[in-house]
């Protein structure tokens, strides 16, 4: 059920009237949500951005789900990366101390090893993911959309009531 909903979201997003930039924008914001803790102030900011900016919300949700799973899998490495940046990277310490004592900034939980690791990973991935996603959407629409529409699984998904229901719910981002 969750899988169908997820596939439906992606297909609908790819076929929607959203531009490739909006879809890629939704994906990278969702990716940020997935990489950092929801308890962080960053999450609130990102959610506001998703709501306010004209990005594809369905793709943001899909990006969150995918990268949340990836984050869970690579958590030890993110923890190690965050620990390195926060503790072992001595030159950065002054920056962290400054930020830590600023009002509100501590609420971002940047001093958490997994959050910092996720942020660092995001900083590295955001541009390539954005560009690749944009190109992928263009390519998909030009070359693969017709074929994909004929896949039995896609037919099945499109015919399901859940697909229709998901489409209505996520229609806000269409």
């Amino acid at each position: 059920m969750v899988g169908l909903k997820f596939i439906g979201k992606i297909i609908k997003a790819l076929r929607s009237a959203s531009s490739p930039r909006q879809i890629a924008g939704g994906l990278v914001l969702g990716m940020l949500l997935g990489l950092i803790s929801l308890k962080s102030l960053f999450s609130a900011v990102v959610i506001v951005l998703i709501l306010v900016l004209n990005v594809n919300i369905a793709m943001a949700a899909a990006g969150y789900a995918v990268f949340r799973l990836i984050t869970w899998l690579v958590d030890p490495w993110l923890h190690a990366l965050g620990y390195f940046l926060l503790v072992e990277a001595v030159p950065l310490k002054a920056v962290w101390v400054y930020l830590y004592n600023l009002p509100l900034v501590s609420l971002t939980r940047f001093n958490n090893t997994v959050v910092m690791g996720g942020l660092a990973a995001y900083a590295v991935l955001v541009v390539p993911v954005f560009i690749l996603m944009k190109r992928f959407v263009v390519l998909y629409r030009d070359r693969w959309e017709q074929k994909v529409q004929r896949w039995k699984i896609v037919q099945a998904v499109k015919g399901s009531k859940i697909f229709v229901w998901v489409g209505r719910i996520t229609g806000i981002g269409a």
Partner: protein
Amino acid sequence: MRKKGVIVLLVVAALFVLWTFFLSDRWLERRLESILGRIAGARVELDGYDFSLFSMRMQWDRLQFADAEDPWKNLFETEYCVLDLQPGPLFQRKFIVEEMRLDALRFDTARETDGTLEIRTKRKKGPSKLGGLVQDRLEQKLSELPLFDAGTLAGNIDIEAIWRRLEPSAPGKIGGLVREYERFAEGVDSRLTGLDVDDDLNSTTEDLDAIDVDTLDTPQELKDALSRLDRIAERLDGVTGIIEESGGEIGKEIERLQNASGSVEGWIEEDMENIKNEVQIPRITLENVAEFLFGRKLTERVQKVLRIVEKFRTVSAKVRRFVPVLEVPPRMAGQDISFGKKRGLPAVWFKKASFSSFTKDDILIEGSIKDLSSGQHLTGKPALLEAAGGLEGKRSIVLTGRFDWRESVPKDSLHLEMRDIVLQDMFLTDFPLVPNRLDKGTASLDAGVEFTGESLKAGIVFLIEDLSFALPAQDPGASLERLLYEVSSSIAADIDRIVIEADLEVLPARTNLAIRSNLDTMVTGRVDEVLQGEAARVTEQLAEKLRSEVQFPIEELDSISRETETQVTGKLRELDRLRDEIEAEIEKKRARIEEKIEEETVGKAKREIEEQRRKREEALEQERLKKEREIEEEKRKTEDAIKGGIESLF
């Protein structure tokens, strides 16, 4: 920009504002109750809570802080309270109170509901270092203090009760020895009867009587009689062996019982020693009299202060630990790295809190606490307590405290000054043998307690003036009570002020308690004299009772031991006499038989030999006479011949 998204955000913001106005108070109240409850380990209840987001002001009408140790009591409760919070630090999750005003703080108040918290903290509860070592030391000191049940002496002394408690063993032991003698006497009788030596001796006597030596004539009869005598003697030897063996065993048992009887004196002495120890009253000297008088009360007071400081430290420690640091984070949790600056903000900081409080005697105390925080190393300031109060606007009580936890070794100090305290119907000491209840008086107290890590130092000066003691209206009847009454009366008459000075030091290696008072000299001489005299009297009474208790058993023991020994030795002596008689009779008959045998055998042969010898001697005599005659004849013939020759010559 997405219009729909902006609208959603605006709706969310509007809902938040509505929630702040209408619902946040109840939510925050529950949150605060929950957080404070976890810190306290018991239920915390807020009534009339109100929080204003715009003015950053928090207030409530009543706060009850239940005591985890006694959930039907409040550790403290307050009436109206208002807190002005700093808004900025809240975004850093810091609870900084710029100013706080708290009315009608009361301690140890009763609760109407159970204050037990259903979900208790999972943290393992254990004594803090202060509670551990110092508490142990004070407990030890309390146990070392003279535990003197003087109340027993002050009332009617129940000799019987002391006797029952002592359970002297000598009467019982002597009684046991008497019973042992009785059993022995019965046993000896049956044992001697069981030997059957009487019958043996009787039959031996009969056998012996059957031998009539006078009727024995022939050597054969005499020989047979001798053989029978030998057999009788052998039987007698057997009986003698039995008698000697049994006599030896019985003798050993008698010796053992005699030895046991010899221990009677030792048993009595042991009981006497126990009596002396039981009635022993600790000497009341100048060195220890103040400990008798005030040691227990003082130590218990210090323990109370200790519990207050300990609660302070425990609550502080709980606040400090409230955000746990995870060193091995679970998946997706990460590890929070702290970058607190040296002068960063602690999680909780009450910069200034003023309060008013009522003591149990309804004395109004007003004061303030400054810089009470969860991280003094961050604020750089110790918590300071100042409180003062008194009746009718008088400043008769001043309490100052300093709680310094900036370094690894916490230092806490409390200083209390009390002036013009009106004392009415107050117990000065637990020691019942001196005038201990004050009718009235005016007191002043200067007390200081310092806790440094696991050590404690306390100094107290307590002065009572214009005092009058409460003495019994009538002379008590009992002699001791009268004596003590006289002592109390004379002390009470001689004294118009009491000064008590005390120093208590609890260090890791030792505990020192020194107490002095101007009562010491008076109490030492007079009370000690009375008590020691009374102790001697009680000891003598108990000793007399012991002597009377053992007198009858000892007499009984003497009597039965004498009787038993007489009985046993008489019996054995009788047997010996009988045996000796038989032996003598045997020897007598043996001698007569032997005489007769000798007469019949040796005498006859001797006579024959004598006859032969006589005959031989007679024959020899005849021969000799014949030869003499022949010699004489020959001699005569020779002489005649010689004569004839001579004559022939002439």
